[in-house]
Structures are given as structure tokens and as C-alpha cells.
């Protein structure tokens, strides 16, 4: 193969591979080059299997991601949420864990609140609602408590 051709072919191959890699990393892996935005955290009693990178929604609109999940000393789950910059949450905001459909993915649903007092970047959402567990609901139904 001629020198120029070899370089061209390998160049095209590497470019195509890198393009696919970039698509996977940026589009699917949600790698963020500009890791800024509005960050808040919230403690939940039970997140029942929510994962890193789960989506955060307000009124059904995707507004951010769950950045990290840790266990607090009080045995609660501490979720760090990274939201779109410019979003305002008030200190009566409510965060709840919901499921899409019966076996769908878990996500965090936010109601932004309206108290007039904005939660600062890095602040905490005080009101949280844990995930609804199907087993609990069924158990309650069987015992006639619903």
C-alpha cells in the first residue's frame, strides 16, 4: 500500500472509532465536560435501588441527574443532585423517588415549592418522600389496611 493511502485509511479508522467512542461517552454515558450546575442534596429513608445517573424531573421534564449516593451516619441515603443551572428550588421543595411504570427505572421527582426562600447551591432539600415499595403495598392490602 502506498504511504499516503496507508495513513489515510488508518486515519479514517481512528476517526470513526473515536467518533463512536465520543457518542457512547457523551450521549449515553452523560460525561460532562462542564461539570457545573445547581447542586443540592437530600436525605431519604429508602431509595430502594435508585442508581447513580438516574434522572431528576420537575413536572415530567428531565432537569438533571443523581450525581452520587452515600449512606449517612444516621443510616439514611444521601443523594447529591446536579440540576440545570438557572433552576430555582425553594426551601419547601419536596423530593420523592418514583418509578416509571411497574418495572421501569427509578427517578427523583422534584416539586420546586413556592416559599420565596431559595435553596442555595449545595443546600439541602428538607422534605423527602421515600420510594413506594410494591411489597409493602401488597402486604398492606392483604392485611386490609388500605
Amino acid at each position: 500500500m502506498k504511504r499516503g493511502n496507508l495513513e489515510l485509511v488508518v486515519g479514517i479508522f481512528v476517526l470513526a472509532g473515536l467518533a463512536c467512542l465520543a457518542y457512547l461517552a457523551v450521549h449515553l454515558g452523560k460525561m460532562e465536560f462542564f461539570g457545573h450546575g445547581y447542586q443540592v442534596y437530600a436525605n431519604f429513608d429508602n431509595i430502594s435501588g435508585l442508581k447513580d445517573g438516574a434522572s431528576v424531573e420537575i413536572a415530567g421534564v428531565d432537569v438533571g441527574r443523581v450525581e452520587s449516593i452515600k449512606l449517612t451516619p444516621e443510616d439514611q441515603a444521601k443523594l447529591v443532585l446536579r440540576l440545570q443551572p438557572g433552576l430555582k428550588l425553594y426551601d419547601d421543595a419536596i423530593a420523592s423517588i418514583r418509578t416509571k411504570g411497574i418495572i421501569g427505572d427509578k427517578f427523583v421527582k422534584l416539586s420546586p415549592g413556592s416559599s420565596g426562600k431559595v435553596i442555595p447551591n449545595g443546600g439541602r432539600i428538607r422534605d423527602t418522600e421515600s420510594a413506594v415499595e410494591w411489597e409493602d403495598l401488597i402486604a398492606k392490602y392483604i392485611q386490609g389496611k388500605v
Partner: protein
Amino acid sequence: MAIFIRPLGRWVLNWVQEAGAMLLFLLQGLALAFVPPFRPRRLLQEINLIGVKSTLIVLLTAAFTGMVLALQGYYTLRKYGSEGALGSAVALSLIREMGPVLTALMVSARAGSAVTAEIGIMRITEQLDALDTMAVNPMQYVVMPKLLAGLIAVPLLTAIFDVVGILGGYLVGVVLLGVSSGAYFSGMVQSVVPLDINGGIVKSLVFGLTIIMVASFKGYYTEHGAEGVSRATNQTVVLSAVLVLAWDYILTSFFM
């Protein structure tokens, strides 16, 4: 009794010895990448042989894998009324498992065997010794560029495999079977996390290095003429496939 135990012991000793020799061979090959003279053109030639020439077979395998995953997934998911999860099922199986493993198997069948045959024939026709007498280190001239090319080309091929597989799944799932295209792609975006992508890339790096290490090692230590080359090529394909699958289990248990 000793008649049965002795061959077993010999077999185990040989096996351990060969594994150790292979690791040293790999380390030596990689270390030579940092020693001048550098020959970037040799690396390009090897990327062409190992990567570019495997692209077609990888594209074909990827398209059919994605299509069959979508078909199988569709009929299973339809029982639960969740065809919407098809995109994430296809993407996750491709990115975590099928992509790295099938790419590695295809590369080992197409390029690994060729690497062994090439180096093996250089060995039995004493071309490697000829390089040595010309003060060219055969490890550095022949083996090292192949190892680097495996390390570079296999992850890129895996990324191509993943994307083409996802498109193949789209073709069957959305175009043929009528799953909504929004559900296919958004389900995929929601359920794939960075760990999946990173895990897939690490796997493909390890597989690429493993395949070319086995292939070069078997070729480099070929003996006994044409028959030896045929045996070495055969061993390369079998051993690299087994090692890829074994590594796959080990790496999955680390990552997931």
C-alpha cells in the same frame, strides 16, 4: 498411581511456565515501546492489519448481533407490556458484554491467527534471526507495534461495534417491529451509566492486549517447520478465545 500423577504434574508445570513466559514477553514488548528508535510507520501498518482490516467483519457481526438482540428482546419484553425497555436492553447488553467479547473473538479469529502465522513463518524461515544480525531487535520491530496496535485498535473496533449494534437494534425494533423511536433512544440514554461505558472500554483494552500477546507469543516461539506454524495458529485461536471469555467473567465481577 504415579503413572497418572506424573503427567498431570508435568502438564501443570508446563502450563504455569508458559503463562509466566507469556507475561514476561508482554512486559518486555511493552517496555520496548519507550526505547528508541521509534518507528511510527510500523505502528500504522499494524493498526491497518489488525484494526482497519477487521472493520468489515466487525460491522457485519455488530449489525446482526444488534438485530437479533432487538428481536429476542422484543418478544420477551412484549409479554410484560414493556417494549419501551427494548432500547436499554439492547444498549446494555451490547455495551457491557456483547460488544467487547464479540469484537475480541472476531479480532482473534481474523487478526490473531494472521499475526501468529506471520511471526511463525518469520521464525521458521529465520527472518527474525536475520533482523537480529542486522542489529534490529525483532521484539521491537515485529512484536511491539502489534501489541500497541491491539491496544489501540480493539477498543476503537468495540466502540464501532456498540454503535452499529445499537443502530441494528433500531432497525429491527423501531423500523420493523414498531417500538416508538423516542422510547428506544431515551430508554437507552436513561439506563446506560458511565460505569457501563468505562467497563466496556477497560474490557476491550484487556482483550486487545490479551489476543495480540497470545498471538505474538505463539508465533515467536514456533518450532518444527510448517506443522509448527499450523499448531501455533490453532493454539492461538483456541487459547485467546478461552482467555477472552475467562477475563470477561473476572472483569465483570470486578465492575458490576
